[in-house]
């Protein structure tokens, strides 16, 4: 098996070091200074140039709820690097590939920005990168880089987590996992991570904490996730689909209905025109 992430949300302290490390290593432009008002989350979502996103879920049940049941959940979201990846199947140029580490990687010099991967990701991860994100240039002025070059190579294409392909190439841990101070983000061989994660669920269970693994032993059409999560709430609370569906599973029904309609009309047409 390949390499992936195990993100244990019970260990996340919401420091966002993963977000910062990712932006810095991958030279991604800043997200701006929008204040969301939604707990401590001003990042709000993964995007073409935002490859880690820490979600903050504050659950206070109101005055009747005992304080022990009030929860503050934090979860560092990331591209799932699915076993059966919707983005990769949709890509018409072959720009999106599975690399030697079993991770889903967008080749930036091949992608032509058709945008079909964007609605084809059941997790809403991949997005197109606007040219404006790079021509804005603030990020690049400080280090003296020529941001025209950055626009040339990076604007107008799809972007998402590479699972630090370049770092893995030289045997480094991906930036987010390296920066995580609590080992909430663990990087390694997916099978080893899964075994560790199952032990963690049992350990939490012994302490009376309910948890489960999202993306392990899954019966969803996207298969297991190379970047999986230990969660303590329903997936919807973290803005994850309850049961992701691989978009290409809709193709047989789609092609069949198109073929039936075409055959029926061709028959009617033949009767009208030739009979």
């Amino acid at each position, binding site marked *: 098996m390949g390499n992936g992430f195990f993100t244990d949300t019970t260990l996340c302290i919401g420091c966002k070091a993963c977000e910062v490390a990712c932006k810095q290593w991958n030279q991604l432009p800043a997200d701006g200074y929008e204040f*969301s008002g*939604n707990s401590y989350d001003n990042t709000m*979502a993964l*995007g073409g140039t935002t490859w880690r996103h820490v979600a903050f879920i504050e*659950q206070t*049940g109101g005055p009747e*709820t005992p304080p022990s049941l009030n929860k503050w959940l934090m979860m560092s979201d990331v591209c799932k690097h699915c076993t059966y990846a919707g983005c990769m199947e*949709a890509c*018409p*140029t072959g720009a999106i590939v599975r690399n030697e580490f079993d991770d889903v990687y967008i080749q930036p010099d091949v*992608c*032509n*920005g058709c945008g*079909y991967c*964007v*609605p084809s*990701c*059941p*997790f*809403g991860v991949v*997005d*197109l990168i606007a040219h404006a994100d790079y021509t804005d240039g603030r990020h690049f002025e400080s280090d003296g880089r020529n941001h025209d070059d950055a626009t040339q190579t990076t604007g*107008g294409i*799809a972007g998402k987590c590479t699972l630090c392909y370049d770092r893995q190439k030289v045997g480094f841990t991906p930036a987010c996992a390296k920066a995580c101070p609590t080992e909430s983000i663990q990087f390694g061989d997916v099978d080893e991570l899964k075994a560790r994660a*199952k032990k963690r669920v049992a350990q939490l*269970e012994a302490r*009376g904490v*309910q*948890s489960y693994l999202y*993306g392990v*032993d899954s019966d969803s059409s996207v298969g297991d996730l190379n970047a999986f999560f230990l969660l*303590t*709430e*329903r*997936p*919807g609370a*973290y*803005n994850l*689909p*309850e049961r*992701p*569906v691989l*978009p290409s*599973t*809709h193709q047989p*029904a*789609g*092609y069949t*209905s*198109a*073929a039936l*309609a*075409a055959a029926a*009309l*061709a028959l009617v*047409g*033949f009767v*009208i*025109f*030739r009979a």
Partner: protein
Amino acid sequence: MSTPPDLSQLNPDASFRGASNGEPLPAHASPTYYDRPLLKRPHWGWEVIVYLFMGGVMGGSGILAALADEDGDDRELARSARYLAFALAATCPAVLVKHLGRPERFLHMMRIVKFKSVMSMGVWGLIGFSLPAAAAAAAQAGEDGVLPDVFRYIAPRRLVGPAQALLGAFIAGYTGVLISATAIPVWAIGKRFIPAFSVCSGVAGACAANAAILALTDGSERTFRKLERLELVASLAELGLLLGFERHAGELGKPMYGGERGAKLRTWTMIAGIGVPSLLNVIPVHARWKTLLASALTLFGGYVLRETLIEAGKDSADDPKAAARQPE
């Protein structure tokens, strides 16, 4: 020790039960994340809408070119369908290249043939369609004296006709498969409807466009009657599928059928684009203005349908509750 629950056990309708003691979590658990979108909005703009519309008319014209009884009444129809199919096949790629984030890389589409990707299939389908379309148009031009006489022999009718019809049907239908094979709830739930009504709308649009061309140039009365009849059948099938899709999609269909967008779809596609032209096509008045009016309404209705589909997909992506429960 119990094993952690897998995704299938997390039925959104059931109260969540954890792995340890079976006690449900507090009921105040938020079902969404601040109502923020779960999915990303498709970026497709007017170029893709125009292409979906043009592709329908183009594919339908391919079918008409094969159906037309060239040795009988439909000489002019065969001519207009061939020219129109070729003209659209020549302009569509420009529109598609324009919509790319990196248009200068459009050739990258051709470095791979990928059956899993509907868009890759569409690119090759479009190239495939343009070959018989170009040959048939060149042969027609040879016959019409526009090109040298030898060109009339480059497109054997028995070969080129069926190829145009088959690939035309693919072109008219694959765009519906393309958008259905996504995670967008309103598109995914329509996998049995969107491709089918795309074909119907394409055939109806092709009948309308060719009837309009013949009305402005020349065409036999019998050809007009045939086009009207086929357009009637295709339009009514499209209407039936649109209504069926509304019922089938239910709550997920709101972005398409609800609000102002739904009203526009009902007014311009269902009533003005299908109802009125169908009436015009059955009344026994044969006049140029009638054909032109019915054609314009049908074509505009087809455009509004494509626009509604794409725009509805964007709003559907914004609905986290719909996205959390993805249609199987």
